[in-house]
């Protein structure tokens, strides 16, 4: 075991950690927003929206994230340049990057899993609370915003913490599309120094630390919500 390489790779490790965290935060935040729409579409949508949302969740939960990522990066990525004018557009520098494709596919994937969690939680909100809201004359929109959704999120919070950790554990896949995340740094160290286990070990400690932080933050969040026992 030798860890002398750390001193020269320290900045790279921090960049990698930053990329990993950025991917995680982007996919969780945007994925959660999409998931809210998907969950409501399944719980209270019409036939068609319900079917579409169900199909979306089945597709993204039934196929490996790696395939989704590659479908987007290699598949859509190879079709994009055919769109006229896109190379000259403002967005091209972003659309060329692996990071963009990783962020989009992780977001879509996270949304599908989170939507299932939220769907269950929406159905688990006690009927009486919704009826009370209606009796107060809340409009459906206000009822959803003030009672239904917040209560559902509260119910789903412990599960959400688990889902975020699962998402963190999926981020190393981004290295297959040239994103310099934590895992990619371990890979680079291996190529440069021929050390296999040490970089993996160090990177694993980073992931464990991130997991601990997520658990701590969500526990704090849970404590913020008043519960009467």
């Amino acid at each position, binding site marked *: 075991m030798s860890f002398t390489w750390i001193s020269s790779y320290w900045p790279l490790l921090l960049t990698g950690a930053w990329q990993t965290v950025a991917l995680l935060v982007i996919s969780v935040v945007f994925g959660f927003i999409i998931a809210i729409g998907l969950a409501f579409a399944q719980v209270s949508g019409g036939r068609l929206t319900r079917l579409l949302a169900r199909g979306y969740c*089945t*597709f993204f*939960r*039934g*196929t*490996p*994230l*790696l*395939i*989704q990522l*590659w*479908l987007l990066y*290699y*598949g*859509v*990525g*190879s*079709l994009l340049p055919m769109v006229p004018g896109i190379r000259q557009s403002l967005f091209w520098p972003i659309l060329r990057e692996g990071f963009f494709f990783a962020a989009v596919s992780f977001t879509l994937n996270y949304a599908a899993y989170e939507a299932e969690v939220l769907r269950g939680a929406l159905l688990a909100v006690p009927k009486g609370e919704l009826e009370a809201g209606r009796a107060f004359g809340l409009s459906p929109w206000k009822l959803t915003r003030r009672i239904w959704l917040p209560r559902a999120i509260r119910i789903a919070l412990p599960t959400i913490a688990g889902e975020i950790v699962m998402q*963190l*554990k*999926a*981020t*190393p*896949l981004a290295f*297959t599309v040239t994103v310099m995340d934590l*895992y990619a740094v*371990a890979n680079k160290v291996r190529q440069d120094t021929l050390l*296999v*286990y040490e970089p*993996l070990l160090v*990177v*694993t400690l980073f*992931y*464990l630390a991130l*997991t601990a932080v997520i658990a701590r933050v969500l526990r704090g969040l849970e404590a913020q919500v008043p519960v009467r026992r």
Partner: protein
Amino acid sequence: MATAQQGILDLLAPYPPGWGGVLLTGAVSTVAISACAFAIGLLLGTGGALGKLSGNRALRLMLDLYTTLIRAVPELILIVGLYYAGTDGLNRLLAALELPPVNVNGFVAAVAVLGFVQGAYMTEVLRGAILAIPTGQIEAAKAFGMGPVLRFRRVLLPALLPNALPGLANLWMSVTKDSALVAVVGYQELALATRLAGASTKHYFIFFLASALLYLAITLASNVVFKLIEGRVRRGQPRLA
């Protein structure tokens, strides 16, 4: 439009100019890897669950380390790390025994690594399922004078299966998807076959979509199978709502 359709069908044709055969072979090896890994995981998990519940402190500490570590570390890191560590460790062992080094077959390595990972998750699923069995049933079996093996086979196993099945089904779904990660260490299954097909024809989109649909088919078929098994192990139980 008609010519484009023809082109796609040609690309996915099951025999050589088309790549359909390669994809299907990849799908078969994905299912084979998953099934073998699932079986190994089931063995490790049963042992792990019984070990954790056996009351032996040292054994429980070791198993706790195993399950916590495996479940906390990203799958990709585990697969890559165990792949190198496993083949390397085996060859060092052989060298110590003064035997010639072997080249570990990709299939065996993939199954061993995924099985080892599955084992940790199965340990927890099965432990929970065993804990959910009413103690009276086990005490009754003891009172009838059943030995541990007979008790396991006749009482514990049939009673834990309905509890464990949803968890086991989830694990099966996750192993079929995790097996795609084996592509990263270079074993040819569906994901890598797809990349190969895409790279040599430049029709990435079509091939990845096709393989996504193949994975989806595997998932949906497994859903049906697990539903049938669940109906079987729950026979005679009162149905809830």
